[in-house]
């Protein structure tokens, strides 16, 4: 069961569309995709994003990759447009809504993309993807990758050593991005 379904069931409420106010911000010219790869949770931090980004840029040289996020320890990846710590929630909504695709970890921008039904490729590690997937996006526009677990169930912890998220091969993520872009 998705966490939102659990919330709705707990309260006896029906699920409708989510709402977030958009605030205009500068968006890149031409086509772009958004990327959120860093999280304060170590168990959500994937070590091979640079390889994924390099593969995407090699295949689609005209496509811009906008790196978003507001984490204090966010790592900047080369080849991306740096929007780190430059947009708040409402500006991120404006930015993500206009993206052709979103990819990255299970995080706020993933749910934001879901609000606007932006196709997404997302990685799940310390939780089951069935519990946290982007609820509002049609399944045909989603590629959800559950990292091969090191234990019999997800750790549900902010720290995992070794992190199972690193069991995902960069090419697998890239092939899903490529698939959705086509």
């Amino acid at each position, binding site marked *: 069961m998705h*966490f*939102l379904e*659990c*919330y*709705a*069931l*707990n*309260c*006896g*409420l*029906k*699920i*409708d*569309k*989510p*709402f*977030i*106010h958009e605030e205009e911000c500068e968006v890149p010219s031409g086509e772009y995709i958004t990327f959120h790869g860093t999280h304060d949770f170590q168990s959500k931090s994937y070590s091979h994003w640079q390889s994924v980004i390099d593969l995407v840029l090699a295949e689609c040289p005209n496509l811009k990759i906008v790196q978003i996020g507001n984490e204090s320890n966010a790592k900047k990846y080369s080849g991306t447009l740096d929007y780190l710590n430059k947009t*708040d*929630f*409402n500006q991120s909504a404006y930015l993500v809504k206009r993206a052709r695709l979103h990819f990255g970890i299970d*995080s*706020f921008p*993933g*749910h*934001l993309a879901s*609000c606007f039904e932006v196709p997404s490729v997302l990685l799940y590690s310390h939780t089951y993807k069935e519990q*946290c997937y982007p*609820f*509002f996006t049609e399944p045909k526009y989603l590629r959800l990758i559950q990292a091969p677990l090191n234990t019999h169930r997800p750790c549900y912890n902010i720290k995992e050593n070794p992190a199972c998220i690193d069991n995902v091969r960069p090419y697998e993520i890239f092939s899903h991005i490529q698939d959705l872009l086509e």
Partner: protein
Amino acid sequence: MTGKILFVMPRSAGDVLCSTSLLRSIKELYPNCVLHFATERSFFNILKNNPYIDEVIEYQEYMNNIFHLEGCGEHKGDYEIAYLPFLNSQSIMTYQHNTHNKIAYSIKY
């Protein structure tokens, strides 16, 4: 019912955003209510200009206690209904609640 309703979702950003999809249902059940949404201050902007929310207030630890919010015994709470969807006990409280139409199931007595 014309009283105040509180929806509590302390964190995190994704949960707060997804929770906004439940608010229309509250306003449909209680069209004349005043709906407050409690969350941590850092998430206030997610709720900016939300058409279903009358006021966004800062989450405080005591808001985890539904009896404190709604009242119990001689204590009169500030809210007629409090929704705390993130607590497992909410489903039990929803069932036991004295406001019967808080429950979306059809119950014949």
